[in-house]
């Protein structure tokens, strides 16, 4: 079976670290199982590091637990990709046309740029974006 690449929204990456109140953890684990089997590669914009980092920052946990979260996050088989400043105008256009935040649009642009699906648990991504296949995590 060929290796498929997908972009993950941070809302999915969070499920690799946290479980309280999280749904579709089985689907999140299925993504990792597919990576382990060599069927899937996970990509995300570098923005995800900050978004997940902010969760860890504000989570009411002990410092030791936060450290463990960072260690776990670092081990996850996700390739983080920087977007260029020149992508900014495209991201802005997506954000404005879909009435979503710039942050939400970063993930759409990356998936579009790479020509791969976006897997997300973010309801704001459940729209039609030309040239981008959006997969709801619950359907994975």
């Amino acid at each position, binding site marked *: 079976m060929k290796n498929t690449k997908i972009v993950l929204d*941070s*809302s*999915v990456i*969070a*499920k*690799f*670290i*946290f*479980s*309280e*109140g*999280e749904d579709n*953890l089985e689907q999140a684990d299925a993504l*990792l199982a597919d990576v*382990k089997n060599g069927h899937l590669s996970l990509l995300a914009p*570098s923005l995800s590091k900050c*978004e*997940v980092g*902010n*969760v860890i920052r*504000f*989570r*009411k*946990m*002990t410092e030791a*637990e936060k450290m*463990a*979260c960072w*260690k*776990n996050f670092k*081990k*996850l*088989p996700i*390739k*983080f*990709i*920087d977007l*260029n400043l020149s992508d900014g105008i495209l991201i802005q256009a997506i954000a404005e046309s879909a009435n979503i*935040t710039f*942050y*939400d649009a970063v993930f759409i642009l990356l998936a579009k740029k790479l020509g791969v699906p976006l897997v997300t*648990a*973010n*309801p*704001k991504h459940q729209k039609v974006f030309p040239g981008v296949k959006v997969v709801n995590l619950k359907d994975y």
Partner: protein
Amino acid sequence: MATAIVRDRWQVTIPPQVRDVWVEPGSVLMWEAEEDKLVVTPYSEKKKPDWNKIWAGIRQCRSFKSKGKDIPASQFIIEDRNRH
């Protein structure tokens, strides 16, 4: 297309545009000189991830209970995007 300058001691800095995508500190690169170009490729036998450690880390972190009334992390991220 990214460019890099060969320095005095034949050192080359990996351009920022391609760092996170293809290489990380400690990566091994293969250099092949062709007729009109130099091809740099990440060494294919990359260290495989230790899946026992990955799953153990996930189980450990998922077992942590919030000491407050935190909303689910995935929800926090979605709401956080609207706060900036």
